């Protein structure tokens, strides 16, 4: 065990022998690139000119009034392609180009990472194949269309649960076969080392900006930062620059689906145990035989049975806390944000908003109205909800919300 590749007991490189040299090459290229000023400048330039950064740290006044505490939204939904995923894709694709790779592959759940990967590939003239679970391809048909318009080939994966987990398996299989000329762009803070580190590096722009922005606006750090956690890429990006600030609470929000007790959820840290999947050791939902359990969440992007290894470590050390909210709570929060702020969030991000509302209530109860009103939290609004409109419509129809 090489400690450099681990976060406490989590992480590592649990991949076939045929990928070990590839990972080593990748690690070396990555470490070299992030120390190269030209590379960093190029990355930042694309983030500025192409992605449209920096994103606003928006003070959500009406939501704040509703909750009785100050809530800031880090608007990752305003990035090109509609989510934080593009931050990481630009970084990895520049690295792929630097390494001389001509083809890229990616896995996708909600389709946001797939769209970002297809976008990056179009931008740099690379061949792109995206692996997507059949079920996800149905519920995110709009994103499939977008990827195809961008010139990517979308492979619908029919194995296991037909979702992100299986798309990732298929991407790993393809990668093991084609690593000699293909770069695998992992979208979440998961996978074998150095992926979790790399994704964190390219997503940490979220907290770097947010920290500076809140200091400018408030003159002090937030009391808490919140983000939804599937694999955990927007969360690790939102946490990164605050991990060293011990007074800032870090709160990750997992998907409780139909409720933890129902067994139909995607809360790896609430109900999982350490295991190995997708090249990493981390918390994992599994059955009594050690087979990976199907995750459930109304949000395709959180529908994942594992979680990034650094989150597992932050949880065990107590530096971050992880909570979960149900499909229903997330959808209610989504509607609240629509109506109060005129922002349609992705269902994934709505999980973080839902817990922000609950957390605000707790603050009022514990500290009193006056004290709560003076507290500040930042919620990472990781993506926009345009892609989810069909799911939202179905949900609302079932619940009779629109009547």
């Amino acid at each position, binding site marked *: 065990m090489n400690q450099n590749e681990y976060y406490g007991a989590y992480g590592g490189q649990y991949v*076939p022998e045929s990928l070990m040299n590839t990972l080593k090459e990748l690690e070396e290229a990555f470490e070299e690139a992030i120390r190269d000023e030209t590379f960093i400048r190029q990355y930042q330039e694309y983030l500025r000119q192409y992605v449209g950064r920096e994103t606003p740290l928006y003070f959500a006044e009406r939501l704040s009034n509703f909750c009785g505490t100050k809530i800031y939204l880090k608007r990752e939904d305003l990035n090109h392609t509609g989510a934080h995923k593009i931050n990481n894709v630009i970084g990895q694709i520049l690295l792929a180009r630097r390494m001389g790779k001509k083809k890229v592959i990616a896995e996708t759940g909600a389709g946001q990472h797939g769209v970002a990967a297809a976008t990056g590939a179009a931008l740099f003239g690379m061949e792109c194949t995206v692996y997507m679970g059949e079920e996800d391809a149905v519920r995110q048909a709009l994103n499939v269309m977008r990827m195809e318009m961008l010139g990517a080939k979308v492979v619908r994966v029919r194995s296991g649960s037909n979702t992100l987990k299986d798309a990732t398996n298929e991407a790993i*299989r393809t990668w093991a076969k084609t690593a000699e000329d293909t770069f695998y762009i992992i979208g979440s803070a998961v996978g074998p080392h150095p992926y979790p580190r790399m994704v964190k590096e390219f997503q940490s722009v979220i907290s770097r900006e947010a920290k500076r922005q809140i200091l400018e606006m408030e003159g002090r750090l937030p009391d808490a930062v919140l983000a939804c956690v599937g694999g955990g890429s927007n969360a690790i990006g939102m946490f990164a620059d605050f991990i060293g600030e011990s007074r800032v609470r870090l709160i990750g929000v997992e998907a409780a689906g139909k409720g933890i007790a129902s067994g139909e959820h995607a809360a790896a840290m609430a109900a999982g145990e350490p295991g*190995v999947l997708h090249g990493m050791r981390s918390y994992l939902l599994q059955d009594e*035989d050690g*087979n990976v359990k199907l995750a459930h969440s109304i949000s395709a992007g959180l529908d994942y049975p594992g979680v990034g290894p650094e989150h597992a470590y932050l949880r065990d050390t107590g530096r971050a806390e992880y909570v979960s909210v149900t499909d229903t709570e997330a959808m209610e929060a989504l509607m609240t944000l629509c109506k109060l702020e005129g922002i349609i969030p992705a269902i994934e991000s709505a999980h973080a908003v839902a817990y922000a509302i609950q957390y605000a209530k707790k603050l009022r109860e514990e500290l009193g109205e006056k004290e709560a009103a003076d507290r500040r939290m930042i919620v990472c609004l990781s993506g926009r909800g345009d892609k989810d409109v069909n799911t939202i419509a179905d949900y609302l129809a079932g619940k009779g919300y629109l009547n």
Partner: protein
Amino acid sequence: MNRIEERMQKLKEAGEKALITYLTAGLPDLEATKDILRACERAGCDVVELGIPFSDPVADGPVLQEASCRAIRGGVNVKKVFRTVAELRGEGLELPIVFMLYYNTVLHYGVEAFAAKCREAGVDGLIIPDLPYEEQGEISRCLEGSERTFLIQLVSPVSGERIPMLLKGAKGFVYCVSSMGVTGQDADFHREVLSYLTRVKEVSEVPVMMGFGIRTAKDVRPMEHIIDGAIVGTYFMKQLEKNDYRAEAAEEYCRKFKKELNCN
């Protein structure tokens, strides 16, 4: 002495090459698996790799993925397979048996307890495709001190400079993967397969077996002067499937393969 070692010794003395077959345990049920293992022994098969079904077999192609899935649906798990092996050993089966499984199955069972159970049940080796050399410390420590169960090393066509490290201390045999990627790619071997096998053979102190994509003894003709044996997985499973998992079909296939492999 470990059963694999013993068998390798005999093959060496006889100047014969080994046949290793793979089957997913529990298809269509564990009684059938027992019959097939007995048939393999009768046919002179040298080692059998018994696949423990797992939900996310990333090193396997569609055929073995599907087999794994069906076995899980049939209720097969590692505990039952341990019992099956122990029963076969009880009736005197001496065929070397290697588990092919994914690391999560071992972790979930408990690494220490798993290693002890292998010794007790009579499992002679472990092939864990998602456990590369760097991550083997934990299980190696638990297997140490007993010569009963070996961790089999896998080598790939792109292992390159890693080869000496992988082979240092290798036991039983070394499993050379013939191509990049997953199992079951119909003899589509890596373009540098011959030079890579030669390199492994030069360094290895244990017999060198080649697997992935092999269907018949003819497929390994081009490298028969280098390797010490062949591993047949996907194709063997396809044959079993085609013949309703009848033990006679397994026996016939193994006999023919073994004969053709050693006809020179």
